[in-house]
């Protein structure tokens, strides 16, 4: 989709506050910001997101290296093969990231920026809308988050509201953003591993 079409659609949803966040992302990902988006914080924010992007790329290298040793990801009739692959991949990543700790990808600067972007998503789309979306889903609260641990298999994955998702820097398919209580989790989708998290990223509703 052409960027202008995307912005047009999102503007109809969010209003103009969205564009400050979009400008930040555009700079970080090498696209031109919309001409109306001017903010003294944009350059600083783009540097922060650029740093996060580097960390994501580093993680992807590690993920792909771990993936090289497991069977290819392709559709199968065997649930066992799917489970085994997930466990093998998780185990290899966990071994490769034994020293991983909270804040490795979500540095304090990134965390601060993300909290701001999430706050803007709340404001732009209407706090009640995003809050209601979270409440009406199945809020996940009782998960003790630990970097490099497996996201509990039996615990549902809470829906991440689109207003938040579309206001955060996009991720490659190997990773996703998930919400646990008020924390934002960066999860490895293939291995179901908690890569990093930001405590208290979601405003209380």
């Amino acid at each position: 989709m052409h960027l202008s079409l995307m912005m047009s659609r999102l503007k109809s949803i969010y209003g103009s506050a969205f564009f400050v966040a979009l400008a930040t992302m555009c700079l970080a990902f090498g696209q031109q910001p919309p001409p109306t988006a001017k903010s003294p914080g944009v350059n600083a924010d783009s540097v922060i997101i650029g740093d996060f992007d580097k960390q994501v790329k580093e993680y992807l290298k590690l993920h792909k290296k771990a993936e090289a040793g497991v069977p290819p990801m392709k559709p199968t009739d065997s649930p066992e093969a799917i489970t085994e692959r997930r466990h093998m991949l998780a185990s290899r990543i966990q071994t490769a990231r034994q020293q991983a700790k909270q804040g490795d990808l979500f540095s304090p600067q990134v965390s601060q920026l993300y909290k701001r972007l999430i706050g803007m998503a709340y404001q732009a789309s209407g706090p009640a809308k995003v809050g209601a979306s979270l409440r009406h889903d199945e809020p996940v609260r009782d998960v003790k988050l630990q970097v490099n641990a497996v996201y509990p298999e039996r615990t549902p994955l809470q829906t991440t509201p689109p207003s938040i998702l579309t206001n955060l820097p996009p991720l490659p398919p190997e990773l996703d953003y998930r919400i646990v209580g008020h924390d934002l989790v960066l999860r490895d989708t293939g291995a179901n591993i908690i890569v990093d998290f930001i405590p208290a990223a979601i405003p209380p509703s």
Partner: protein
Amino acid sequence: MPSMKTCVAVALLGCITGAVVLAQTETPRLTLVESALESKVAASTTERLSAAACELPDEQKSIRLAVIGDSGTGGIEQYQVGQQMESCRAKSGFDFVLMMGDNIYGGKSPQDFERKFEAPYKSLLDAGVKFYASIGNHDDTNERLYKPFNMGGQRYYSFKKGNATFFALDSNYMDLAQLDWLERELSSTNTPWKICFMHHPLYSDGRYHGPDIDLRAHLEPLFEKYGVNVVFSGHDHVYERLKPEHGINYFVLGNSGELRFRNLKASAEMAAGFDTDRSFMVVEIAGDKLYFQAVSRTGQVVDSGALDRPQNR
């Protein structure tokens, strides 16, 4: 045009008396032409199981399908719904099933896949019926790799059957990439019928979850712009048919395994509901008509009707 107060009163009365509350469409792009004669908020919880009374027109060159949602409990009721579906298939000949997510609750071991999917629908699978899954919040996203779910390894995908295109969406994670994909797919699809299905409902009178209004704000403009006719979803463990919203017909079907007993709170938007037992749907699309029946675990038809596809869509 009745006032909002009138609509609410009628809806509440309908809920209390078990009567049908018919759609009041302002600009009906899909018109309910054959009112839901047998539709009711049924109260039957008897254990008497009878062969599903499903009857579809069985027109030539039509496509026939079933719909289930929130099915993967592995409980006896899921198996009973599976039996009713098989009985219905023998009559109506549907050859594929849409799954609204929460396909495998709890554990995700091979035994779970067997107990919560392969065994309850064994006779359907053996007969060559294809299941097309969407992902629910209780599912593992890696279920997309499970061949019997026909997701082609993707979280979201589309497929064509006859004169209809079906779009399976991942409503757990509606990011820009998926919205972009959906817009491209919808804009390049020429089939008369465009049908979306996903886990989370954009409209629902379920008390427990209710509608996802943030998701609605992102999806409904696309549905409207590109002429989506029907949207199926689950998540709320009830059956509900909504009055058309912006010309789109919404169904909630989240009680094919799970159930939230008497969880519906009828609003002015509700056309029909069933929240006292499990159910599934059978659908036939023939030309510009879509016929539907919702069938309970005990074989009762709890809602039925037909929708007309407007010529300008």
